[in-house]
Each structure stands twice: as C-alpha cells, then as structure tokens.
C-alpha cells in the first residue's frame, strides 16, 4: 500500500540577508497510515524545517527548491497556495513547541479551535463551537464546556498543549506533525501529553510525525525513526533496531553521549568533538566526517548515499558500525554488563548544611497600598546536607523550589526562615558586608549563559571581574588566573578578546563555568547548566565538570529537572515537589529503590532511550496538574496526584523517615519501601507499585 506521506529528495533553503542556509539537503522519508515516525536530531539538523516544509509554512526567506512531497498521491510542493490551505489543518495538522506563544492571547481557546472547523467545514458558528467542546473533551480537558471560553493565559502549560492538540485535530487530519511538543513541559506532564497523542493516533487512525531531540521520547513512542544530521538523513529504521543496532557512527556516538548510557558506571561520556558544519556552505563529502572517529579518506572526498543491506534499515555511511543484518532474524547486540552499583563510600565531612529553609514570595494586590494577600510558598522547610567533594543533585519539576534553594544558598535571595550553615556560620543571618567575603567560597553557574554574561563585556573582563571585586591580585596576576581558567574549561586563550555573542552555546556555558571557578570556590551551585544544550555538547560540559571536580576538589550542588543527568552525576539526590523535599539519599538507592510515590512517578515519566524498557513501563506516570503554590494542599503536598493517598495524607504532613542506613529518607505515609526501624534492621525487599 502506498505510504500516506512520501518525501522524495527534499531540498529546502532559507535565504538570509547575508547568505543562504541549505537547511534540508536531500531528505527522503515516508510515513505509513497509523504509524508514528520519529525524526530526531540536534539543533540545526533540519528536522524542524523538514516538518515546516511539509506544511509549506517556512519562515521568511524559506523556499523548497527541489524534491517532492506526496500526500495521498498528490505532490503538495506543486500545489498553489489556495489548495494548500485546504490541506493545512484539514488533512495535516501541526502542533508546536511553546503553547503559550503559539496561541493567540486575545482570543478564547474555543474560538481558536472553532476557527479550525469553520475554515474547512460547512458549519455555522454554533456547530463549530460544539465541535470545539467535543474535541477539547477528547483531549482530556476537564470541564470542557466551561473552559472553552477561557483565554490561553488562564491555562497551565499542559492544558494549553492539549488545547493546541485539539485545534490541530478538530478536522480529523490523516497526519499530525508534532514539533517538539513536550520540550517546554514538565516531565510528568510530558508523559501525559505523549500518551494522549498516542491514544488519539490509535483512535483516529492517524499517522504522526514526531520531531524531537529527545531519544528517550523516540524510544517510547516512535514506530520508526529517521536520524538527521546537517540537513540530511543519517540513518533510518524501526525503533527497536535503531537502539539495538545503530549502523551510522553518528547514531552510535549520540547514544554514547547520553548520560543514561553511563548512569550505572559513571564513567566519562563520549563527547562528539567539534561542531556541526555551517549549512551556508555545505561540505561536499560526508558531513559527519570531520567529527567521526572512524573517518577515512573516502569519507572526506565522497558523499555517502542512503543505502542499507536490509530493507527498512538505511544509513548513509561507507564504513557503518554495528552488525550486518543480512539474515532475517533479529540481531541482538549484547547489552553491556551490568556493573555493580558503586557503593557511595565514606562521604567527606559536611560542607554546607541547610536546615528548615523557608522562602515565601509575597503576592500583592491593591491599588496604591500593596497589601500582601498571600504567599507563594516556594521553599517550605527543607533540610539536607552537602558533603565535601561530592555532587548533590536536586531534582524536581517547575515550581518545586529547587532553583530558589540554589539562589538562597548563593545569596541572590534572602530566606524567610531557616538556616544555611557554612564554615560554622549561618549564612542566612549574616549581614551583607561579612557575607561578601564568604561569597568567594560559594559560586553560582546560571542556566542561560547568554543572559548571564554582559553582552558588552569581553570574555576576559567577564572572567576577571570577580577578581576585581574581591580585590585579588594585581593586573598581571589576574590575567594569569584568567588564562588558567580558560585552560581548565577548554577554551582557547585568545577567547579573552571575544564578546559573548561570538561563542556557541556550549562555549558560553564553559565561560560561565570558568567565571564561577575563578574565585577558587569550594562549592558551586549549578542551576540547570546543561538543560539548553544539545546532547553532544551536554556531554562535553558534563565531562568537563566531572574532570574539574576531581582536579580542583570541588563540591557541586547540581540543580536540574533532568533525572538522567542527575543520576549520572550525583552522589546524593534530593527530590523536590512544590517546595518540599520529598525524598533524599544516595543516588542509586533513590533511583533504583525509590520510596516516595512522586519519585517513582518521576522515574517512570522520564523517557529512557531504551525501547524495551519504555514498552515495559506499566506505571501510569503522575496524573493531574500541579496545584497552586499559593494555596498548597494541606498535609502532604503531593496527595492530590498520588494514587496511594488516603485521608491521613490531608491531615498530617509526613516527615522524613529513614529507609536505609546510608541516609536514604522520604516523607510519605504510604511509602513504596519499608522504612528501617530504630533498631537499625536492614531494608526488606523491593515493593513494586
């Protein structure tokens, strides 16, 4: 049967003022009815432009210059705009990454969905609105009939994305294109949305193109995958085979850079050297050759075609890796030996201790006199210890308070209550002046390095500013120190002359890290330092952080929402939810034997780049939405979404109780493990939920 969508040799260019970017350079794909095709790659690989090309919604300056896109037999590249409009929203629907900006803020959600209906069906306004309610219901929006008259800003992120999906599906298209649909959402909501898309696909008999950079999402949701690199397809096959037996060196390298791959062993990740090629001047030979560890002369001279030795598995490489699949039987690549868990040996002395930390942000209302009408309880009585020389990972979703804690420790905000013990002093009580001296020891690494570097300062000035402020050294000594830092983070010495915008994302993160190192701190609080980076760059930065921790005897407080990264780096993990620390303990214990239902939910929701594991997941993830932080639920804050919740959870707040002798604690009335008794008996078996 002919595929639903067939792309043949697509070439798309973007003509900018100064140059032309060959964003898509000869891509061929096909999608069968009812299946999910995953298109995966890092930023700049052309996956989004490919998706936009199908809809012919290219940005200004974008043109399809060659190739054909056949939808149900008709070549839509040749279609005049009027007819294309009949295709958009009707036969092909598309959803985008950021639901907040992708919805018109001044139009009700219902009207926007109804618009999709009115454009393609002969109905009146009432009927269109009915359909809008119907389809909102279909996507799982509670109280659809009431909420249909609300505006986008009145919804949460997950609900907004559901509204977008409703809009795209209102006319029951045969194909849904989802461009990074969950990247802007929390992990638990992400799982809900991905499930929803899957469910709808089955119910409506749709095909889905899932464009993403997240290999875990691909592993769990895609039937087939196309891996893109530098505007071309590097490899294409069904999901299982891709993960089991990648043939293209890029795919293989990608897998090896994932923190999940080294989670158990904690060794260095493979990081792909260099950067993707400049697509304004596409190289004539194999595009991955400059960064490929197996590259040979032929690779640098000729361009490999997309071929395969088994139908259904194609790759563009002269010297593919993996195992030839000539035989019909599936080849199982041997799974790496499960390395026994590292015992988190004797931890060093406690470096920093947080006790009963509280931070409330006032919510004010009122015309002239700003009355405090409530508080956002961002951090509610959190206590934990950070040991010298270790990495403490603080993980949680948006609004859990992890970033706030980081800021409190570093002094960017003042705590409302509680203490931060460092060097025998309570930093929360310290006055500004004496605190400035202490500042040297605790430094901060920002998430968005682009925003955290003054665009008007050269890198050298950025790095030496901390030294100037702390009055350390004379000019020469400072320059010496700056050069030293640049060496540490792997930036060339001539970088001192450059401005922040002249660096790439990964390089800027290194610069930010160098700045946090320059005062020889003991503790570095890193707030989502790798979240905005591509996987291969992420690996570089993580390796750098690990190495420097060893070389300079650093201690890290690593804040992230990415469980895989946290698990890879951390010795201890703290899990936060809505301002509370719900579980804490040695990393492997928390990850492999979680005691708190939220931790379990989090682990289950986070997509893992292993199709078998993903398929085997039976846990439903975490239902529902994040409650308001201004009026958090009484008792246990997680109870509104917890499958095990009982009455007592609303009345009595659970306290942290120990689950092992290694400091594993969780706060739950109905934990998933058995707590240790005070006599110190060992943890009994593992309870599965």
């Amino acid at each position: 049967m002919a595929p639903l969508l067939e792309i043949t040799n697509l070439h798309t260019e973007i003509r900018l003022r100064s140059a032309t970017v060959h964003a898509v350079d000869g891509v061929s794909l096909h999608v069968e009815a009812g299946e999910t095709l995953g298109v995966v790659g890092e930023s700049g690989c052309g996956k989004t432009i490919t998706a936009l090309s199908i809809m012919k919604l290219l940005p200004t300056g974008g043109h399809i210059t060659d190739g054909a896109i056949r939808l149900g037999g008709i070549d839509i590249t040749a279609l005049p705009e009027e007819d294309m409009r009949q295709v958009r929203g009707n036969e092909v629907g598309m959803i985008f990454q950021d639901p907040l900006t992708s919805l018109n803020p001044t139009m009700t959600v219902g009207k926007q969905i109804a618009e999709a209906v009115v454009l393609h069906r002969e109905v009146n306004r009432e009927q269109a609105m009915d359909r809008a309610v119907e389809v909102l219901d279909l996507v799982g929006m509670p109280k659809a009939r009431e909420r249909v008259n609300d505006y986008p800003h009145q919804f949460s992120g997950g609900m907004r994305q559901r509204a977008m999906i409703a809009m795209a599906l209102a006319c029951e298209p045969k194909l849904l294109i989802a461009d990074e649909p969950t990247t802007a959402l929390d992990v638990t909501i992400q799982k809900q949305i991905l499930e929803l898309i899957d469910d709808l696909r089955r119910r409506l008999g749709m095909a889905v193109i899932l464009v993403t950079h997240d290999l875990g999402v691909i592993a769990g949701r895609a039937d087939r995958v196309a891996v893109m690199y530098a505007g071309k397809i590097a490899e294409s096959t069904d999901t299982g085979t891709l993960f089991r037996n990648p043939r293209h060196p890029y795919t293989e390298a990608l897998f090896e850079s994932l923190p999940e791959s080294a989670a158990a062993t904690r060794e260095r990740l493979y990081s792909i050297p260099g950067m993707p090629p400049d697509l304004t001047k596409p190289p004539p030979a194999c595009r991955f050759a400059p960064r490929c560890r197996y590259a040979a002369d032929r690779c640098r001279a000729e361009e490999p075609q997309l071929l395969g030795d088994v139908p259904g598995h194609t790759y563009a490489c002269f010297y593919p890796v993996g195992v030839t699949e000539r035989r019909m039987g599936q080849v199982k690549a041997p799974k790496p030996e499960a390395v026994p868990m590292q015992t988190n040996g004797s931890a060093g002395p406690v470096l920093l201790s947080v006790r009963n930390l509280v931070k409330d942000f006032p919510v004010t209302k009122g015309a002239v006199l700003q009355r405090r009408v409530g508080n956002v309880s961002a951090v509610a009585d959190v206590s934990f210890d950070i040991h010298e020389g270790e990495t403490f990972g603080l993980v949680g979703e948006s609004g859990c308070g992890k970033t706030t804690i980081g800021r409190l420790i570093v002094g960017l905000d003042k705590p409302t209550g509680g203490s931060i013990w460092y060097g025998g002093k309570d930093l929360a009580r310290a006055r500004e002046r004496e605190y400035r001296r202490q500042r040297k020891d605790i430094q901060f690494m920002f998430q968005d390095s682009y925003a955290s570097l003054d665009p008007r300062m050269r890198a050298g000035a950025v790095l030496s500013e901390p030294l100037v402020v702390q009055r350390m050294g004379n000019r020469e000594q400072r320059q010496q120190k700056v050069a030293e830092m640049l060496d540490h983070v792997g930036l060339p010495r001539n970088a001192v002359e450059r401005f922040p915008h002249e660096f790439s994302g990964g390089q800027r993160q290194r610069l930010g890290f160098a700045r946090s190192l320059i005062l020889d701190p003991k503790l570095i609080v890193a707030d989502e330092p790798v979240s905005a980076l591509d996987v291969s760059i992420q690996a570089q930065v993580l390796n750098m952080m690990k190495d420097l921790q060893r070389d300079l005897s650093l201690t890290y407080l690593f804040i992230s929402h990415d469980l895989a990264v946290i698990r890879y780096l951390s010795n201890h993990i703290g899990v936060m939810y809505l301002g509370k620390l719900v579980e804490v303990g040695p990393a492997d214990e928390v990850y492999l034997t979680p005691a708190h239902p939220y931790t379990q939910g989090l682990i289950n929701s986070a997509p893992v780049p292993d199709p078998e594991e993903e398929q085997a997941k039976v846990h439903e993830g975490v239902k529902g939405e994040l409650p308001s932080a201004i009026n958090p639920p009484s008792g246990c804050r997680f109870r509104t979404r917890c499958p095990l919740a009982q009455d007592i959870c609303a009345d009595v707040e659970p306290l942290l109780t120990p689950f092992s002798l290694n400091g594993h604690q969780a706060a739950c009335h109905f934990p998933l493990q058995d707590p240790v008794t005070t006599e110190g008996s060992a943890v009994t078996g593992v309870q599965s939920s």
Partner: protein
Amino acid sequence: MTTLPPGVDPGLAHGRTALVEAQPPDFAAGAVGAEKPRSLFARGWEVFAQNKLALAGLATAVFMVLFSFVGPLIYRTDQVHVNLINAICPPGGAHPLGCDSVGYDVLGRLMIAGQTSLEVGAAAAFVAVVFGALYGAISGFIGGPVDSFLMRIVDAGLSIPYIMILIILAVIFAPNRVTMIFVIAAFYWLGVARLIRGETLSLRTREYVQAVKVIGGGGMRAVTRHIVPNAIGTIIVQATFAVADSIIILASLGFLGLGVQAPDTDWGDMLAGGLQYLQGGNYWWLIYPAGLAIIITCIAINFIGDALRDAFETRLQRR
C-alpha cells in the same frame, strides 16, 4: 514628543522563533578567518555606515552646522540693525534670498537663526536626556515605593499639556537662548525618564546583573558597570531624537512670538509673520527657506537616530 518605537526586522525571525541560527564561526577551532576581534563600537559603526540614509543624514546635519556657524564668517550681513528701506525686497543681487519684513537679509538671517535653533536644540536635548536618564535609572534601580512615587511625579508632569506650560513659562520669563534651553528641557526630561526607567527595570532582572551580586559586588557596581553601559544605546538614540524634537518645539514657540527675541532669532521666529505675508502677496522667500531648513535638519537627524537604533540593536542581539 514623537519617539518611534523600536524598529522591527522581520527578515531574521524576530528573536523567539529563531529556527535558523547562523552558526558563529568556530574561532575556538582556530578556524575560518579568525579575524581580529573588533570593538563593539567598530561593529556598530559598520552597521551605521551601511545605512545610506544615515550617511546622507549625517552629511546634511554637518552641512547645516557649518552653514549656520561658519557661514556668517564668509557671508557677512548686518543682522542687528533694521533697514526698513529694504523691507521685503525680492531675491536677487545683494540679497540672494531677499529681505524680510524689517530689512534683514534672509540668507544671513537663516544662518543666525540656525545657530540658535541648533544650539538650543542640542543643549536642551542634552540637559533633558542627562537629567531624565539619571532620574529614570535611579528610580528604576531603587524600585519599590520610591520608584512609584518618583514615577507619579513624572506621570503628573506628562499629563500637563507641555505646550501650555511652555507658553506660560515663556510669558513669565524673558525668553533668551539660555532660558529657552531650560524651559524646553524642563518638560522633555519627563518622557526620557520614563523610558530609561523602563529600560532599567528590564535590565535589573537580567541575569548578568544578578551575577554581580554572586561575585560579591554591590549595587553601585551593578548600576555603573552593567546597567548604564547597556542602557547607553537607548540613551543615545533618545538624545538624537530629542535634538530634532527640541528644534521643532523651539520653532513652534518662535512662531508664536514667544521664543527668542530680536535681534536674536530662530527658524521658527523667522516664520512668525508668515501668515500675514502670505496674504499680502507671494513672498515665498519669507516662508520656504526657514521652513525647509527646519524640515531638512530634522529629517536628517531622524535618519541618524533610526540608524543608530539599528546599530545598537544588532550589536547586542546577535545570537
């Protein structure tokens, strides 16, 4: 008065949906024409210079300055004593642009008037912008109730139709160049203050300003080393437009007879009798030279201001 909102360049997807990022050259790999890094000023100048209108504007502005200040040294006329015999003589011969209602040579008068217009315009703009920027920056940085209060004052000032106050002040105080400078600045600073305060508020929340606290720096450092330099762009652009606006305000007051007094004059003052003379006959030389001088100068300054705005934006917004 009439300040343009930031220009928009839709060619490069405006920030948010930057689907296509031009890759920065990998200087780290010692690659691709690792040019010597240029200062921000050099790059800004490059963008400015590419804008032909801006260059034309700059040339015109320079010409007007030379015309007004150097001109009288070359082309000497008597601009102090009236000469009623020559009243409204048509252009020709000794008076290329004719004479005005009291016998002054129009071309010469145009130069003298230019001096006043440009001087007062520039000075008023300078005073207004310096004061307004400081006021706004301090208010924005301190924040809280102090900021609210200071801004209420600005709001109050902005609610008063400035032209009325200017007229009243011009009636109370004998108008000369210096008083005109302060009278105009006294109202123009309000708009600048509000703008810079907004800018400061936005900059204050930038992470690189917060980073100053982390390394142990204080508020002073944050303001002087990070906020002000990043606001300078806006300030300079504002100052440029302020000059054009001030020239127009001065001219408008002069037209009403409430500007500088004889024998001093400005372009607007030259047009003061304009209406009567229109009706008496076709005395075009009493209308067009002065009016065109205003228009051409202000258009030139606006071109410069627009181009400066583009130059400042590109150099800071490169991704």
